[in-house]
């Protein structure tokens, strides 16, 4: 049993209200995609109230979920029907204005992240780039219990000395 799980937070601003025909495709996909996440290998938990309590801003939709591993989250995100859903995201969303809309970080297994924490991590990622506290699929960091030796984790490929 892993001691750490991966937290995932994603936020974007709707182009139109949820009852507008322009976002119908997004709304139609919500239930099937959430159901797909729930039955995906390595899924641990997700915040069920989509967006409702995440920020004080009504038009921001966020997802917050917990996964057993980076590979499990990657498989769901990019190797399932979810890929086509996320491909169409700009039909429905505009970026929030941070440098990224998705952030990942490790949490002790058995604990749950909060949306406020997600916003903080997203801001941190924007300010400092990928670090062990807030990273991305493209620049991942290993779970704290997977880090061996004294060298700090680095997103850069190892270079000969």
């Amino acid at each position: 049993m892993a001691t750490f799980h991966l937290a995932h937070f994603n936020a974007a601003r709707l182009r139109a209200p949820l009852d507008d025909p322009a976002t119908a495709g997004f709304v139609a996909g919500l239930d099937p995609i959430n159901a797909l996440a729930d039955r995906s290998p390595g899924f641990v938990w997700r915040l069920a109230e989509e967006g409702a309590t995440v920020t004080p801003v009504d038009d921001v939709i966020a997802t917050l979920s917990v996964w057993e591993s980076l590979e499990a989250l990657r498989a769901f995100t990019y190797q399932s029907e979810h890929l086509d859903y996320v491909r169409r995201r700009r039909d429905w969303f505009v970026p929030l204005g941070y440098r990224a809309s998705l952030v990942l970080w490790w949490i002790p297994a058995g604990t749950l992240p909060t949306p406020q924490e997600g916003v903080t991590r997203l801001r941190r990622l924007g300010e400092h780039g990928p670090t062990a506290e807030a990273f991305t699929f493209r620049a991942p960091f290993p779970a704290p219990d997977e880090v061996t030796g004294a060298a700090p984790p680095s997103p850069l490929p190892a270079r000969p000395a």
Partner: protein
Amino acid sequence: MDDTGLNAVSTLADRVRRAAYREVASAGGAPVGRDDVAASLGIGRTLAAHHLDKLVDAGLLEVTYARRSGRTGPGAGRPAKLYRVAADAEHEVSLPPRTYRTAAELLAEAVERTGAEVALFDVARTHGRATRTPSAEVADRLEAHGYLPVEADGRIELRNCPYHRLAEQFPPLICGMSLATVEGLVEDTAWSARMDPAPGRCCVTLSKNKTD
């Protein structure tokens, strides 16, 4: 400048070896035996094996072992040495040095950050339309763009992703771009493309439109 790419490419200078590489590459990721290569090229098995092993040394192919024709158990013989394209070993040679991949990564990140995907997909669809040959079969059109189309049961799978590395880094963006390109390529035919991700091949597949 790192000479890995140059070494890999110079291994292909021999015409027979180049034909052997093409033979294995055309199978997509599926492993191919030396006997198959020898038969298609009309050369001896020893010569075929020699060229295939040179291609392995150069990092262009990789070796797997498997029993062929489904035989198992005692008497099935030892596993055959098979060859397939080393998909993750990409070689790019540019003289003088040009680094378009880096440029592509920077552009991709900028498109993602600004949310300009719709414009990218539009550009890609137009590109697909503009580069298609109206008289060409769908498979040839896809082939010309670097996809390795394999048709079976009214469905086409693409065994190669022309944007492999980039697609792994920016899946929604690059797979979306790829889908839009293919849509533009085939929209005047009886085929339609959709996003259908699976490991080991392009995330786009095509199917025959219903005619009724």
